[in-house]
């Protein structure tokens, strides 16, 4: 009988008593960053711009939009919330000079084994150009744990109106979501990449792809090519995919019309999120833009995400949204064809517009219902030479 007690004792020992002491944290993230103090409010258009909350885990560029770089005081203290136990260099809250460009901050994990470097920039305008030619692209290579390297194209713009030569990463794609399950891929393997076959110079190729066995199993079987002004917050890609696409960047001019060039061919088989085939449905491309107030009634910053865009017919019903433009149809064509769309809705108050109180969201997708994981694998949309006209 004594043995019996020993057995139970052993089992209990293994199952519970062996819980070791908690290891030191391995993570080293900047979770939020902010400028504090009324004396600094004058540099920003809106006080909401002084805080960057919920910084995406994949983000290493933190940008603060200011009225004028030249008017900045030489030294500004930047505060951070970082992973518990981690340390940051230069010190949290220390005075730094952002007038000369990027300041790099390095966060080291509590266990000292991991580091991440963040580039913090103060920039004048959020949307630096009126014309997007998609000539600026950089290839980001990331080593994957399971061997191999994923290379992804990242589109950016350069501010031609100021002396700043900092790249502005205003464009986002869903590529990082697909990269999660890819182990060794070239830029052209992803749903969005920079193509040498542009209308002028380089252009963007967006194509709807299979998300593979893993994607199908997670009920996200296809990945539409989508390029948009805004951010792709990878954190939500599995738990709330529509929240991952956060549309819009601040813009201090009111848009009237957007034009551009495209080529489009829909894929063969239209399928839904269960990969059920619909022989009578044809895939369509989608190009649209939304102009909306980026601060809500409570004075908190507001961003449109995929949930708000689920039904494009209802976007204008959103009280935050002032204007919207849609390209009525994009017939299949193999030659570069021009499209245009006009903004409809209500006029935005000039003072708020000038104070960067509005965001412009511009979205291109190779499958109109790609956010619902409906579309045809193989649908391919090329886009180039996009031009935005503003109210004078």
């Amino acid at each position: 009988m004594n043995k019996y007690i020993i057995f139970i004792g052993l089992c209990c020992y293994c199952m519970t008593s062996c819980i070791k002491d908690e290891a030191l944290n391995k993570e080293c993230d900047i979770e939020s960053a902010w400028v504090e103090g009324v004396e600094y409010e004058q540099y920003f258009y809106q006080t909401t711009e002084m805080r960057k909350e919920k910084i995406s885990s994949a983000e290493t560029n933190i940008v603060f939009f200011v009225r004028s770089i030249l008017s900045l005081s030489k030294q500004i203290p930047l505060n951070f919330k970082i992973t518990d136990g981690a340390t940051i260099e230069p010190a949290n809250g220390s005075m730094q000079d952002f007038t000369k460009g990027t300041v790099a901050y390095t966060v080291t994990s509590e266990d000292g084994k991991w580091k991440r470097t963040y580039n913090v920039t103060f920039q004048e305008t959020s949307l630096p150009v009126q014309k997007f030619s998609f000539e600026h692209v950089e290839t980001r290579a990331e080593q994957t744990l399971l061997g191999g390297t994923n290379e992804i194209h990242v589109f950016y713009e350069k501010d031609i109106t100021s002396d700043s030569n900092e790249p502005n990463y205003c464009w986002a794609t869903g590529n990082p979501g697909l990269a999660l399950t890819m182990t060794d891929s070239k830029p052209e393997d992803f749903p969005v990449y920079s193509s040498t076959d542009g209308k002028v110079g380089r252009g963007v190729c967006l194509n709807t792809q299979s998300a593979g066995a893993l994607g199908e199993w997670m009920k996200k079987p296809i990945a539409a090519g989508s390029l948009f002004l805004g951010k792709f917050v990878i954190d939500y890609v599995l738990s709330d995919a529509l929240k991952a696409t956060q549309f819009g960047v601040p813009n201090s001019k009111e848009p009237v019309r957007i034009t551009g060039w495209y080529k489009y061919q829909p894929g063969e088989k239209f399928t839904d999120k269960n990969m059920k085939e619909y022989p009578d449905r044809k895939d369509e491309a989608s190009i649209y833009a939304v102009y909306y107030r980026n601060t809500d009634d409570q004075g908190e910053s507001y961003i449109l995400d995929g949930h708000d865009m689920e039904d494009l017919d209802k976007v204008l019903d959103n009280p935050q949204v002032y204007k919207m433009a849609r390209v009525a149809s994009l017939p299949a064509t193999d030659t570069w064809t021009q499209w245009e769309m006009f903004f409809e809705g209500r006029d935005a108050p000039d003072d708020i517009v000038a104070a960067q109180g509005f965001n412009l969201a511009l979205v291109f997708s190779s499958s109109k219902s790609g956010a619902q994981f409906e579309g045809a694998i193989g649908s391919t949309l090329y886009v180039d030479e996009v031009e935005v006209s503003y109210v004078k």
Partner: protein
Amino acid sequence: MKKNIAYIILIATSLLIGSPAKADTLDSLQLKARMGYSIGGTAPIPLPETIRSIESYSLTPSFMVGFDAMLPLTQQWGIMTGLHFENKGMKATITTKAYFMEVVKGDQKMAGLFTGHVEQKVKQWMLTVPVLATFTLSRKVMLKGGPYVSFLLNKGFSGIASDGYLRKDNPTGPKILMGNREGEWATYDFDDDMRSLQFGIGIGVDWQVHKRIGVSADLNWGLTGIFPSDFKTVEQTLYPVYGTIGVFYRLK
């Protein structure tokens, strides 16, 4: 599979019959039919620091039925073998911090460090052949100990990672949040990757309560992990450790 079962039975019987037994020693052969219920776990031993707590452990139908034959060699020492059909199942919810895991589907993989809840289910229906030395302590109590080999007939290793996040590849990789509903969490199963043969050490006691009826307690400690050593997906080696409380009926 049938061939393997036949092979195990052959080993079992040959161990008995093949032993240097004369007719009179064969007469002293003890036969016991037994059944029991097992409680235990299939876990890394010791638990790694990435496992922070065991939130729940639910009983699974871990039954054992079988028979044993014991051949006394001296007054006190003997040798025992038999054939047991048993399940070493487990269902446990653990909380993890930066626990390495991998999700595999087809040719695609996603690996990283998971912090959150893991609901783990293990199913291992097997035929076990123990080869035990016995020591008769008294007329009623017999101690036993020795190796065993198990052949798995039906196996399952699956789970759900929820309410937390996966840092892809390493602690600086993208942080993928997981929710608490289907479609928001990640599931995995590695049924086919499990070993078909397991070895281990068992110790136990048989206590004859009545003329023919007795109770038993056994502890079977796996020495081989449930996955082959070249299977890297589950970082820690998982050992099956199960205690069995049972009753037996002495046939002879």
